[in-house]
């Protein structure tokens, strides 16, 4: 059961920490610098960010349990294919990985004029735990800047591209 809660506020400069619980995830939303002619409503912004943060839960669960089907709700296309391939590799090697996000610094970059994709960057702090045949081998805290492209689906935004970039 995923107990992690993501809390976020759509205001620049605000950092909100989860009160509840367990894994505290700080989320910071930078002012959007959208390159587009298409207006993005506050409601849509909130939905994009909510669904993206939710995708981290799916990623964590799928990679930790080596279950690619847990990606279905949040990922499509190349992002889903790559994560699923990674899970298959993990299975073959007898390893699991646990990704625990600690903070997100998000900025919306691009909303395509046709409304079919939105791009954001996320500077994420996260812990990665490597487990080989149920033995914890290592845990490391990392920071990486992700480029993310989301696409609208029936009821939510799904992550279509998920790629960390070299600063």
């Amino acid at each position, binding site marked *: 059961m995923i107990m992690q809660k993501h809390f976020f506020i759509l205001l620049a400069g605000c950092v909100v920490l989860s009160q509840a619980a367990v894994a505290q995830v700080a989320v910071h939303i930078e002012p959007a610098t959208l390159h587009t002619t298409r207006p993005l409503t506050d409601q849509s912004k909130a939905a994009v960010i909510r669904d993206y943060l939710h995708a981290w839960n799916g990623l964590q669960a799928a990679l930790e349990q080596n279950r690619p089907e847990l990606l279905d709700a949040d990922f499509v296309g190349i992002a889903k294919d790559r994560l699923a391939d*990674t899970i298959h590799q993990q299975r073959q090697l007898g390893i699991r990985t646990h*990704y625990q996000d600690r903070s997100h610094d998000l900025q919306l*970059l691009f909303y395509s004029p046709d409304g*079919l994709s939105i*791009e954001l960057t996320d500077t994420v702090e996260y812990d990665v735990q*490597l487990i080989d045949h149920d033995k914890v081998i290592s845990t*490391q805290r990392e920071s990486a800047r992700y480029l993310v492209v989301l696409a609208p689906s029936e009821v939510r935004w799904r992550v279509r591209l998920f790629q960390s*970039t070299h600063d």
Partner: protein
Amino acid sequence: MRAGSSLLVSGLILVAAQLSPGQGTTMSLPKTVEAGAAFSIQNPGSGKATLYIIGTGQVLKRDVQLGETTFFPAGSLYNAGRYLAVLTQDSSTQNGSFDVVPASKPADMSFFAKPSRLPVGLHDGITGTVYVFDTYHNLISAPTPVSFELSTPSGTVQKRTLVTSEGAAWTAMDSTAQQGIDRFAARIGDVSSTRIVGQVPGDPCTLKMNARQSGQQVELITDPVRDCSGNAIPDGTIVTFTQSYKGSQSTIDQPLKRGIAQVTMQVHPGATLSVASGVVMGNQIGWAK
């Protein structure tokens, strides 16, 4: 369950950072590796160990001999992203990280053109969005020139050259005055992609009918129906003829055939005849005969 993992994670971070195998020197990692390129990692110390390369895009595991260099042939890591290297021997562990970066040469693109069909004469009516990828379908975030070109059957060409920002570029083009099939192309170096955009006539611009006696009835016939750019309105478009007489109305809907609509109807002397298509009103004729 997650709570336990989180506490364990926090506790292990510092411990892992202090440990190093062998003689206490650190493994030598590349700072960056181009996607698909060969690379190597120098492992300090002596004895056998296990080297893990971990990322959300790929994972690798190798048995290595410490004190030697581990070579990874071309094609070992091809998905761009941050990778952790974990070298473990007995109870000691050494960590590091490096980035796999996209190849600099574009090899593929996603080109979205919308809409596939639109009326003529719309400013910024056609939009195109491009995402640029390398041969392994990694998004190339470095600025990359993209040219867009919209060509019409009449030979008119609209061109834009832009530079991608974080892997994406977009443009908007006008639909031109002439109906037909346009080719909308995006080009990045040697890579190009083309979409077909259909331009269809707009609403009728002027709608004019003529009336003449035809036996006991009146024949109403329109001039060829065109949009404001002179394109013929497609056959099948409905034209409505209306007769208004002493407060009552009767209408006949007739589709365009060969660019015109015509109908024969019984008309009361003193009636007013009018013609319309959609929201476009045509002329009126007072029938006095």
